[in-house]
């Protein structure tokens, strides 16, 4: 659960759902604001005041970034390590954790072993090593080795290596060449050294002073190459981007726009957007979901992974289609199914592979909230959870803070309804929470919208009734009455909060920051451009990386 700093100050009963309070004084200085800011002097942050950007600092590559980078550096067919230190997703996004996570000795050991293993995979295969190096080294200092060292280290470090660094690398190659009497082993050790070098494993994004905004630090052109590439493609910069960076092109919005547009055309950009949504919507571990085999005999890892694939396809398709209003993802009738998923949806399915499919116009199946992956991810093994689903919509779709339940409360639902009879439906069982005043303030906030999805069981299959009893899926979203999932989804698709939430989340993920209180003004600007460009997500990505939010940093702690 994403627990923002705001949650700490919310009273248990005060389930107000405020996105972020404009009253900073109540919370003191915000994270990212630095200790030097006097909270009482901050009111409405504007462009002329202390910026509130992300802090300059060191990011560790996430596991996905490491894997993508290694594939780009060594070739797509290398076997990737399976036991790297995992990402820190304390605040939902691995990018936020990447500024914080520390490598234990064991983690460093794993990086080291992975580096030797990866290098060996390439250099102990004559075809692969020749493909990578392009020439056969005669010794550790010949032109072949020297050129490779220079080029490969530039890719791995995402900048040209310094003279000192090149000397140390050359020393490694020399010693290994001697030890094995074989210059290829020299380059193997050199690659192993680069893949365990902190300059590869971490991204120093430190910025430098500039006259453009004297109160902040501006990321250097080369740092911008790293930021653009990992944000838009999830991987290390290619040579074209590094060349542009070395020309200083990435210091201006126009230069950034040209490169960003180019980067977004590659397949890697689609994968990066898919990764963003998996983290933002919290389904990175969908394949690990456990469901009761008796109740859901069709559920297995393969089906879960098809659900994941459908989510990726629908979200990414909506993000990259030209002039597409992305918010229609909440109402779309589009599906992407294989035979297993088609069966679950009751749609005609292919005999092999995946195909596009369309749900019936009058069905309750409408958009993202009713895709099987989302519904499966927010349910228990044996039953649905309107609470989990409602909290999901509040927190992830509307960016509202939901505090955890108070300590010491028995959270078990009663098997006896208030009338004394056994409750028939989940709605009736949940009614206990809405009656108990300790629970009611919050459960009334998220249960009704979760109950809108009750026609979908714990793996997202449609059900007309629950155990033979009629389902009531009506409710209201902060006063707007809906009859069920389709109407709720239609409301969310045009809800300003859902749109701003997406803008905010994209920024949080790209910049690796939790708290956005002090950049409200910049986020509003971004939101306005999202709106004016027809809510195209790919256009929003370009606007985001051009914006001051992405180009500037605050001084580190």
């Amino acid at each position: 659960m994403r627990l923002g700093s705001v949650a700490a100050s919310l009273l248990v009963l005060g389930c107000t759902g405020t996105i972020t309070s404009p009253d900073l004084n109540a919370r003191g200085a915000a994270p990212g604001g630095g200790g030097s800011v006097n909270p009482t002097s901050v009111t409405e942050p504007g462009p002329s005041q202390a910026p509130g950007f992300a802090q300059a600092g060191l990011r560790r590559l996430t596991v996905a970034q490491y894997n993508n980078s290694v594939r780009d550096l060594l070739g797509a067919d290398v076997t990737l390590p399976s036991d790297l230190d995992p990402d820190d997703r304390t605040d939902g996004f691995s990018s936020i954790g990447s500024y914080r996570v520390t490598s234990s000795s064991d983690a460093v050991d794993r990086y080291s072993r992975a580096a030797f293993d990866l290098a060996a995979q390439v250099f102990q295969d004559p075809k692969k090593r020749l493909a990578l190096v392009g020439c056969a080294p005669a010794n550790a200092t010949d032109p072949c080795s020297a050129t490779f060292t220079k080029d490969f280290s530039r890719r791995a470090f995402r900048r040209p290596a310094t003279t000192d660094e090149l000397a140390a690398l050359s020393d490694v190659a020399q010693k290994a060449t001697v030890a094995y009497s074989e210059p290829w082993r020299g380059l193997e050790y050199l690659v192993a050294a680069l893949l365990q070098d902190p300059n590869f494993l971490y991204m120093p994004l430190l910025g430098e002073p500039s006259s453009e905004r004297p109160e902040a630090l501006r990321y250097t052109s080369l740092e911008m190459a790293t930021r653009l590439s990992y944000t838009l493609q999830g991987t290390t910069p290619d040579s074209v981007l590094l060349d542009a960076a070395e020309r200083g092109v990435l210091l201006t919005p126009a230069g950034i726009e040209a490169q960003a547009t180019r980067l977004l055309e590659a397949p890697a950009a689609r994968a990066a957007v898919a990764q963003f949504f998996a983290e933002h919507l919290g389904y990175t571990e969908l394949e690990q979901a456990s469901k009761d085999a008796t109740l859901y005999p069709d559920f297995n890892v393969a089906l879960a992974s098809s659900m994941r694939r459908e989510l990726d396809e629908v979200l990414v398709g909506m993000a990259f289609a030209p002039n597409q209003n992305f918010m229609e993802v909440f109402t779309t009738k589009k599906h992407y199914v294989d035979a297993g998923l088609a069966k679950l949806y009751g749609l005609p399915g292919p005999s092999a592979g995946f195909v596009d499919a369309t749900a019936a116009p009058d069905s309750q199946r409408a958009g993202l909230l009713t895709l099987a992956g989302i519904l499966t991810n927010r349910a228990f093994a044996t039953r649905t959870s309107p609470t989990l689903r409602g909290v999901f919509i509040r927190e992830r779709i509307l960016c509202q803070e939901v505090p955890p339940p108070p300590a010491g409360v028995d959270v078990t639902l009663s098997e006896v309804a208030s009338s004394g009879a056994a409750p028939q439906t989940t709605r009736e069982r949940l009614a206990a929470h809405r009656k108990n005043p300790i629970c009611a303030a919050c459960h009334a906030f998220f249960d009704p919208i979760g109950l809108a999805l009750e026609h979908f069981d714990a793996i997202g299959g449609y059900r007309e009734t629950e155990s033979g009893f009629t389902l009531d899926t009506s409710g209201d979203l902060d006063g707007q009455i809906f009859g069920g999932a389709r109407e709720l989804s239609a409301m969310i698709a045009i809800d300003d909060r859902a749109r701003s939430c997406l803008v905010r989340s994209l920024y949080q993920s790209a910049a690796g920051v939790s708290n956005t209180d002090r950049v409200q003004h910049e986020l509003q600007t971004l939101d306005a451009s999202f709106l004016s460009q027809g809510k195209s997500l790919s256009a929003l990505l370009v606007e985001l990386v051009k914006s001051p939010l992405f180009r500037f940093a605050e001084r580190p702690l």
Partner: protein
Amino acid sequence: MPTSPLSRRLMLRGSLALGTTFGLALPVLDAMLDNTGRALAQTGGALPTRFGTWFFGGGVVSSDRFFPQVVSDNWQASGMLAPLANVRDYTTLVRGAHMGTVKGNGGHWHHRGWALSSSYYTTDPKGYPGDPPAASIDQVAAQHFKGQTRFDSLELGVLANGGVNSSVSWKAGHQIMRPDTDPRSVFMRLFDGNLSDASATQNFEAIRTARLSVLDSAQESAKRLSLRLGARDKQRIEAHLDGIREIEQRLQSSTQASSCQTPVAPQLGAAASKTSGDLVGISDAMADLLAVALACDLTRVFSFMFTGAQDPTVYAQLAISEQYHVLTHDSTWYYGNADKVVTFIMQRLGYLAGKLHETKEGDSTLLDRTLIYATSEFQDASRHSRDDHPFVLIGKAGGTLKGGRYLKTPSSMMVGSVMLAALQSVGVPATAVGSAEKDPESYTTEAFTALLG
């Protein structure tokens, strides 16, 4: 390893004396012992003591149900504790101590901080939410034993669930020690010395030199990088440098002849799923490796995460299809069915303790010189309880614990008091646990001295 009491020559003698038919229960260090079997032959120094934590998530249903009815110096193994019958004489049961009070609205969370470090989350908005401010007690012990063995500590686990926060070991300052859940990987680390490809070649020294140059290069990079960083990031790079130095030290001390006969590599790898897998197989393979690591004095400190706090494990072995954490909050299910989960967990703890007991060391066993500090995040996960915390302490810690006893602390005592006594029992001269600055309520300086003696 300049401070090791076991010189390399002595170690080699040890391995020769063992011959080639290494079995896990062989007296590994015997060749290095004097005639009494109670001290080291060359120095007359005492045999090492060891300390480890063993953690499982989800509580014990309730301390009243988990522990025997009568407090006595001779408890009887039954109910959920029946699986510990084989090591009952080595097992000290402790209950009664409490954890700190809820702060803010974070009190609901299943935190591992109090039960393992006597410190709670910081909620400092500028800090790192979620991490206990003080080091876990295995790392307190590791700091004391540092440098005396090849590994300062071992972190073992069964399922890799929950990312970095699902760990039971950490140093202060957001340094998570993630458990290794792959028996083959643990084997490689313990017995391979990062030089497997070189050990059979004539160029051993040259290859070692080349490997060291790789580490040198990484170290130099880290140092140059550090100069450009703010204080917080400097600390992170410093931790990374520590990791490189540890590899370097192991590389420098490795020899072609192993100091300790290598056991057979485990066939079992990590579970494919993060929430379910061969819990028995992996846990027991880890226990086997741990027994050899302790017997060979490769480390004196370990942490073992059978499951983590807020345990997402699906106990498919027990015909359960839901994540355990979810079930712990269905109090009807929990009070009716969790006994069998806790019993299952105690069986694995019993296997580990039994393995250490089987492993002879001089005239006694490994378990005589070890203390396993086993606990969970609560007694009753359904209530997120903070009172009457359960501890199962197995081992005689070098003779400072009698074993077979069942003790109650005063209910006013903090869990930290049990930790302090446990640390002191193995010779770690700790005088306080927790964080006086970040969680003063849980900061503890008073040891539960009744444990000792």
